[in-house]
């Protein structure tokens, strides 16, 4: 394991594109949360009647403990940025044919896959650390709630980690199957931004919400929107909260399927 980590570190240590996209990720997560926070602040600080009503209706999603859910939900829209890094790291191996060189040099095929699994875990770790830091910073800045409740929703760290890992695993699988960086990125981003939301909408309308089993939606549903959304439609929001547990199970299943398939295929196919 340490040897795999060391080798992967040697691959990315001097890879400028990796650090550039990771820097963009580090900027984009605080950026999007800051934008949401500002919109919220501007809206609720208005002195007119609409501002007063919004203040009463929305509460403060950026104060502890609700902030844990709010930032997790907002940040989940930006998983396609670290997905770029994941896709780059796997497609590079095919572009440079180093996937075969690593095997020639003495790794077995499972070790190669395990090294890529470590990459995805590490990137997930970085994103989760970023989320946690950001949440604490915004939360402390907005802290008006009573202190004992502060950490009651910290389990969202785990949920956010699970969701990020699941979605980055799907990005990895796309890169692994397609092998060409630009095509893989195009497919993932198109699916993430257009195809799945469209499919979700259609399946919600014409089937019994079968869209919940779409690859990204499975893990999307483990982080429900901030609680103020429930005030618009209490029944739907309660349903969303009730679905969380079963979707955690689905997400674990999805992760197991994705990685089992990748390990199996890598063992089977010619390099």
């Amino acid at each position, binding site marked *: 394991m340490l040897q795999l980590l060391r080798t992967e570190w040697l*691959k990315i240590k*001097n890879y400028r594109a990796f650090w550039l996209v990771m820097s963009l990720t580090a900027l984009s997560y605080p950026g999007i949360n800051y934008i949401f926070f500002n919109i919220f602040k501007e809206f609720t600080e208005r002195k007119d009647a609409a501002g007063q009503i919004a203040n009463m209706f929305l509460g403060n999603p950026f104060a502890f403990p609700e902030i844990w859910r709010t930032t997790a939900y907002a940040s989940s829209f930006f998983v396609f940025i670290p997905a770029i890094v994941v896709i780059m790291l796997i497609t590079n191996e095919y572009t440079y044919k180093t996937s075969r060189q690593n095997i*020639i040099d003495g790794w077995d095929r499972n070790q190669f896959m395990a090294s890529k699994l470590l990459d995805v875990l590490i990137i997930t770790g970085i994103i989760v650390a970023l989320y946690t830091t950001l949440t604490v910073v915004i939360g402390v800045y907005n802290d008006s709630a009573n202190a004992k409740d502060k950490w009651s929703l910290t389990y969202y760290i785990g949920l956010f980690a699970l969701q990020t890992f699941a979605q980055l695993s799907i990005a990895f699988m796309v890169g692994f199957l397609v092998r060409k960086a630009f095509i893989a990125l195009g497919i993932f981003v198109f699916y993430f931004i257009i195809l799945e939301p469209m499919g979700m909408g259609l399946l919600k309308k014409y089937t019994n919400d079968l869209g919940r089993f779409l690859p990204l939606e499975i893990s999307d549903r483990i982080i429900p929107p901030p609680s103020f959304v429930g005030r618009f439609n209490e029944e739907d929001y309660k349903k969303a909260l009730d679905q969380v547990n079963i979707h955690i199970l689905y997400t674990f299943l999805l992760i197991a399927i994705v990685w089992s398939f990748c390990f199996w295929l890598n063992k089977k196919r010619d390099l």
Partner: protein
Amino acid sequence: MSVLTLQNIAKSYGKIQALKGVSFNVPEGSVFGILGPNGSGKTTLLSIILDVLKADKGNFLWFNNPSSPAQRKQIGSLLETPNFYHYLNAINNLKITHSISHRGNETDGIDDVLHKVNLFERRKSRFSTYSLGMKQRLAIGAALLGSPKVLVLDEPTNGLDPVGIAEIRELIKDLNRKGHTIIMASHLLDEVEKVCTHVAILKKGDLITSGAVDEVLIDEDIVEVGSADMTLLKNTLQQYTGVIKLQEENNLLQIIFPKGTAQLEAINQHCFNKGIVLQHLLLKKKRLEARFFELTNN
């Protein structure tokens, strides 16, 4: 002892049969050339023994044991093209080779091979800035890391200039003198003839022949003779027993005998008895190129 044993290896790409049941042994301490025209299956064969491709049928043994990652770590290999991370320099690329294979020493070992392949001055340049020849030399350097006892080299002189080719040839000879086994695929017959002790010839996936170079090259004895009166010499030798064919080449006469039957002393005596003094008498080895064309019908 065999370093590598191939048993009935077959591989297809769809309808195309790249290898059709190839079997041979690579003896320890040999420079084993795998020869064949483009598309004959050389790279496919090397890819299979390095576990990059899966054979459809047959198996192979390294040191009489089934292939394993631990064995591959002990084999220095260059397959098809130099495969390195384009954004890394030579040192960092070789650190990755070392980290996976554990061959050699991370600092001295890397510097040592970079000196050997004349890349030390450019060791801190990114791989993407290298010329084709430099990339090839780095790949050879990676294969040499830790001085492995077995080297598998696919077209090792690809992209090298004449000086580079000669350097690699000398390097291979030197390693062989030190007891290393080298398995190399090439379509450059001259190169193979100069360095190989053993050879296997492939054509469209079939193994045409394999064995020691001398055995493969010699299917008949060629004796080259010359004298002042070539007409008389030709008439005299036409009656000589055991001659398959007489042919003229560059003002000399070539006498073809069945393999292992030519006796220079007897030919000289025969001519002398007929009043002909020979100015030139030589038992000639057939060139690999000619033999290769014969075997592959090209």
